[in-house]
């Protein structure tokens, strides 16, 4: 790697982490458990979702190990079913949905818009507690014997044909849903009502825009999932229902209601990640985001169109052919804003002054993998090819490219990018660059073969499979071990850096966001004085003037 870098750290011999900051303001467990400070809540979230990520990751490891051989060697079929169900439930509801919004978003949104806190700090804390209650219920479910419905809870399988812990899982997701609703609601209110003087809508950082769009989806989509799960639980307990055909119900109705949330949920997961990428790409190419307005509006467009496409999960279930047409057409429309974003990021690099620190490497990874993930989504949104590809490993590969290749890359990019702000210390650069590359390689090895498996027709959720699929599965499992190393590394060196990392100073990246104009780690109130915003986002000329002025002041 060349030495070209934009990192500007203070003189390590004299630099100190500010004595008063949000981490040190109060001490003791209670000061954390009863905090209303969005940064502390974000920290709590970060710890808890990391915990769940590693549980989900361990389950993923078990899945890949089992699929190494065509027969069920490692575990029985029903154990396998429980493992992939819990992997899905934990990764979707306890990692991906809250990942960027509840941690990085929670930490940054008030700072980015120049507010002291989210509009509803106590609701924010409540939302973390709801998340933890839900998490405990999920853990309980696993300890009590697990659940094997698949995270999609297909009725009537989940309502009448299984004896596992469907109810506790359903309620866990119900509660986690409310946690997500409250986070989204809080963000929308905060972004509308708490902006600093001068912070107009089109001066907002794009991270705020994309979280705003994701919040709309959380607020409008999640309740439908909640009521659907309530109905599933009622059906199970009362042996009657609107989803089971034996009693006159309609299982397709369940699919409609479930995907009404669960398709937009995909955008809940990916949109905040896109926001991270906008920030990172701009910072490391020292350039404003190409076509700010287009990127901002494409987030909102994804959020709105995201609500009209859910039935593309049901093309082969026997919905009306004409409804399938409409939903397929709308799916094509929702693919366009994503394309806009990709090209705008690529053109942000044009005539920039690019450096390749870890967050940027992860961002590049995101752009490549998300492009593949997005394009293969079009294969599934097109009715004709969907018939063959749906419910196979093609789908698995597709959404892992979007969720893991996209969202997780963005999450890691964001964590590295804002780590100095969060902790006041830098992560070690060299090893983290290595981790980014390892993740990228491991990821492609793990999931690319699955596209071919899908084309060959290997169905998803199979504990055992015909031997002709073995080769690609071995590749996939081998890749997963590399990927696992790629995820363990940041865990280790980030923890290490808490104590031994270099002191970062206020603005190690020379970035423009308001969050970088305050100390690291920030004060509990974020700013000593509420800033007055007089420039657009990503205005590097303003930043230069600002820095020059500050240096002059110091000299004086």
């Amino acid at each position, binding site marked *: 790697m060349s030495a070209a870098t934009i990192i500007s750290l203070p003189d390590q011999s004299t630099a100190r982490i500010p004595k008063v900051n949000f981490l040190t303001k109060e001490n003791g467990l209670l000061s954390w458990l009863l905090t209303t400070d969005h940064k502390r809540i974000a920290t709590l979230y970060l710890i808890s979702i990391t915990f769940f990520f590693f549980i989900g990751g361990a389950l993923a490891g078990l899945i890949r190990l089992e699929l190494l051989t065509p027969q069920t060697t490692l575990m029985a079929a029903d154990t396998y079913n429980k493992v992939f169900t819990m992997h899905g439930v934990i990764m979707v509801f306890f990692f991906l949905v809250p990942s960027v919004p509840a941690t990085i978003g929670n930490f940054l949104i008030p700072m980015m818009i120049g507010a002291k806190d989210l509009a509803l700090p106590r609701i924010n804390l409540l939302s973390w507690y709801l998340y933890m209650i839900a998490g405990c219920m999920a853990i309980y479910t696993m300890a009590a014997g697990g659940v094997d419905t698949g995270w999609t809870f297909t009725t009537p399988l989940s309502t009448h044909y299984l004896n596992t812990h469907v109810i506790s899982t359903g309620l866990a997701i119900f509660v986690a849903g409310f946690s997500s609703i409250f986070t989204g609601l809080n963000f929308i*209110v905060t972004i*509308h009502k708490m902006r600093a003087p001068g912070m107009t809508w089109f001066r907002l950082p794009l991270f705020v825009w994309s979280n705003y769009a994701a919040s709309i989806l959380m607020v409008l989509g999640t*309740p439908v999932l909640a009521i659907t799960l309530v109905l599933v639980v009622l059906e199970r307990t009362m042996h009657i229902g609107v989803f089971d055909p034996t009693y006159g119900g309609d299982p397709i109705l369940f699919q409609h209601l479930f995907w009404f949330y669960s398709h937009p949920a995909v955008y809940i997961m990916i949109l905040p990640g896109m926001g991270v990428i906008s920030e990172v790409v701009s910072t490391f190419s020292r350039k404003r985001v190409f076509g700010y307005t287009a990127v901002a509006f494409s987030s909102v467009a994804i959020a709105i169109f995201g609500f009209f496409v859910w039935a593309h999960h049901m093309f082969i279930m026997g919905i009306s052919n004409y409804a399938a047409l409409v939903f397929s057409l709308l799916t094509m429309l929702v693919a366009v804003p994503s394309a806009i974003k990709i090209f705008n990021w690529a053109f942000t690099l044009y005539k920039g002054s690019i450096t390749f620190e870890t967050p940027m490497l992860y961002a590049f990874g995101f752009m490549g993998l998300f492009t593949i993930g997005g394009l293969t989504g079009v294969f599934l949104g097109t009715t004709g090819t969907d018939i063959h590809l749906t419910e196979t490993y093609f789908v698995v590969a597709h959404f892992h490219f979007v969720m893991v290749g996209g969202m997780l890359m963005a999450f890691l990019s964001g964590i590295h990018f804002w780590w100095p702000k969060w902790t006041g210390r830098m992560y070690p650069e060299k090893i983290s660059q290595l981790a980014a590359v390892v993740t990228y390689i491991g990821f492609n090895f793990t999931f690319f073969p699955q596209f071919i498996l899908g084309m060959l027709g290997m169905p998803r959720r199979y504990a055992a499979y015909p031997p002709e699929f073995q080769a690609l599965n071995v590749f996939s499992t081998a890749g997963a071990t590399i990927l696992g190393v790629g995820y363990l590394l940041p865990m280790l060196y980030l923890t290490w850096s808490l104590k031994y990392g270099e002191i970062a100073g206020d603005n190690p990246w020379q970035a423009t966001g308001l969050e970088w104009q305050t100390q690291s780690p920030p004060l509990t109130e974020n700013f000593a004085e509420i800033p007055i915003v007089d420039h657009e986002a990503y205005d590097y000329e303003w930043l230069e003037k600002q820095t020059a002025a500050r240096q002059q002041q110091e000299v004086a």
Partner: protein
Amino acid sequence: MTDSAAVANSAMAETGNSHHGEHPPYQRHHFETVDQQFDATNFAMWLFLLTEVMFFGGLFTAYLIMRNWYYQAFVAGSHQLSIVWGTANTAVLIASSFTMAMSVWSAEMRRKKSLLVYLCLTLVFGLVFLGIKGIEWHEKWEKHHVPGVHFSVESFVNPQSDPAVYNEYHDAPLAPDMAQKTEEYFFLYFAMTGMHALHMVIGIGILVFMIFRARSGAFTNGHVTFVENFGLYWHFVDIIWIYLFALLYLISRH
């Protein structure tokens, strides 16, 4: 009107000044002004109601599809509901909405006594509503119309066995398979009214809390946010009932 505007203006003048002088005690530290606080919490309440709309939206969707499929069962099921109780309950709930609106007005006008009276009235109407609902549910229990629990289709395959309803509507007996679908109707009836009643119970809990707070003048010092937001919630619950009444009770009475 001029009177009320004057009082409101004086209240506003006070809050408007607040950022020059000291913050009123009810202003939370992270807000710049009381107005910002009011706007933010009010908007948050609206967003919460948005989620509630979608929450009930799932039930309404299920209802519309099932009703379309099993129309006769839904008609026969709805004949089991008492239109008198239903209408009375609608009136009660509208009245409680009205008294709630008057509570908000009292809080805005800083009339503690009238605030207390209206809040108590709202509470009473709310309880009356739940009471009537309880009577109706009890009747369903007696007639074995609670789905999943010893549900019986007797009243539908053999309407004469239920003289009170039969004399009013002279329903033809339903075929056995359609009669079974009345369980679907009652499932949705209990799910929808139950979910609605749950919202009422939560609302009543908050009302009791509010009455205690109101006695110490908490809402008549110019800080009406809480009352106003609770009012929004209460009116929303009222709106849901307006639709439930139309959909569950009035399917086919002619």
